[in-house]
């Protein structure tokens, strides 16, 4: 009796495991900025296509590109375009990256809500991160030391910030580094003299977004490119995905009405206008 029960359980385990093994898997890896959009799409797909198992990893745009090149993921989410070396590595390994721009994002400079400063120029932000401006009273605030916070170098947000604002100059050695958008948000929220930069979707109550060069970051200014630090968010696939496959549906989901709702819900600027 006990033996038959054991055999029955083992058989049931095999049956269920084959169901999982036979199921279609979609593995997505990459940026912490685009990650929430992929999560949102995966949520919708769970209801509409329940037999597909979608996993989303968020560890940085660079990590996502490396995973796509090594064929460890199906879709790589990146908040920047692939670098030269990443593209070359991909081609030598037989991977042909195709970019799909799923949303627009702005990198917003944020400060603590109690900070009286509400507008800065690109020049001033650059000097803060170069260590030339060390106190808030040099840019029109109260007298307190500036605590500058940056994302680490694995981040696409960091690359965008470095490209548009630092213009290739090295940041000062006293800058603090954090590893994700939510962590940067938490640091600025908890520190009075802090200044940091996060993606547009992470500007919530708790921090204040600054006006940069006279332009306030908002949906219209980011979509039109008027806001100086706006960038498209990408999903990369190996070649154009087969029409009708789940990967194809995933990377074109942002063109549907529900996809646009998901993108707006996560705080980004959709490319469509339903």
């Amino acid at each position, binding site marked *: 009796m006990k033996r038959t029960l054991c055999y029955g359980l083992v058989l049931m385990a095999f049956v269920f495991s084959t169901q999982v093994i036979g199921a279609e898997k979609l593995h997505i890896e990459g940026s912490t900025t685009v990650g929430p959009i992929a999560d949102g799409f995966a949520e919708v797909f769970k209801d509409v296509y329940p037999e597909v198992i979608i996993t989303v990893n968020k560890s940085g745009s660079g990590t996502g590109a*490396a995973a796509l090149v090594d064929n460890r993921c199906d879709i790589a989410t990146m908040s920047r375009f692939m670098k030269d070396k990443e593209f070359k590595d991909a081609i030598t390994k037989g991977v042909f990256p195709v970019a799909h721009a799923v949303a627009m994002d702005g990198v917003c400079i944020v400060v603590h809500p109690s900070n009286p400063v509400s507008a800065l120029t690109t020049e001033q932000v650059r000097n803060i991160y170069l260590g030339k401006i060390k106190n808030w009273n040099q840019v029109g605030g109260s007298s307190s*030391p500036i605590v500058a916070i940056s994302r680490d170098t694995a981040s696409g947000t960091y690359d965008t910030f470095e490209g548009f604002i630092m213009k290739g100059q090295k940041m000062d050695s*006293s800058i603090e580094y954090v590893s994700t958008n939510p962590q940067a948000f938490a640091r600025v929220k908890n520190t009075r003299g802090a200044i940091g930069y996060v993606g547009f979707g992470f500007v919530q109550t708790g921090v204040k977004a600054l006006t940069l060069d006279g332009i306030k970051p908002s949906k219209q200014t980011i979509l039109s490119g008027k806001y100086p630090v706006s960038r498209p968010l990408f999903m990369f696939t190996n070649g154009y995905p087969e029409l009708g496959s789940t990967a194809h549906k995933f990377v074109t989901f942002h063109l549907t009405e529900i996809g646009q709702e998901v993108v707006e819900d996560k705080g980004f600027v959709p490319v469509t206008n339903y």
Partner: protein
Amino acid sequence: MMSSNKNEQTVAAAAGFDQPLLLTYTQDIKGFLLKHLGRIVLFVLTCTSVLAVFLIFLFVILEAFPFLNRFSIVEFLTSTAWYPSAHERPEFGVLALIVGSIYVTITALVFSVPIGILAAVFLSDMISFQVRGIVKSIIEILAAIPSVAYGFFAVLVLAPWLQKHFGFPTGTNALNASLLLSIMALPTIISVAEDSISATGRELREASYALGATRVETMFKVVIPAAHSGIIAAIVLGMMRAIGETMVVWMASGNASQVPHPWWDLSQSVRTMTATIAGDMGETEKGSDHYRALFAIGLLLLVMTFMLNLVSEYFLTRAKKSMGKS
């Protein structure tokens, strides 16, 4: 008579007494091979762990060697400019990182060694056996908490608290990381120190009391000096735990690759070697200078922990020898 004879025959058959005493050729060879094969298999399994350590060293040295060949080691170890991903002229100076690691480790030891040794004294000499068991298990739980949980606590709770109460401009600094590392090193120090203090035996204490010493004098002038090898081993093990900790310092120390300006100012943000490797490894392209520089830092870490391990082994063997004598 007949039945007992038959019984003896079946017993003899079961014990193999009805077979000839000399082994056949195949039986002999089979026995020889199986005996030696068994020994080889067990030897290989034992070697696997030794091989793992050896291969880790080999792998790290191989990846770091091209970098150490091309760039001057002196500049690597003495420059404070760490800009590995700059476009025109990347600089690889790890002095700020080494100083950061040393700062947080030594400050963590400053907090955890007195608390740890006093707690070990309390656990071994002053409370009853049952309570000691319970308290030891609770302290072991401290060691089982994942380091990411400590990191969250540091960023979300400890950092704002430090900013509010001490008026630091930033709460994620060397002090924050040191406090957390001292909590993480505490279980190790308490366990090993308590074991070595308990092992010094009753005779020592009884002799001291018999000569008229008070409890305090016995504890600090007789027992702790007698157990000093084990206590030093405990401190070195705690130091190894603190120096190798990655997640907590990545979240709690602020990661500014600088040497603090007045050198004793712990309220400034620092960066450790472990956090640099963890933070930068995800992005670097395989085979680039940055990638190999990170392996060079890893080699430095391995060498430092290896030395600390040798020191702790030396003191532990001394402690065991003195225990054996008494």
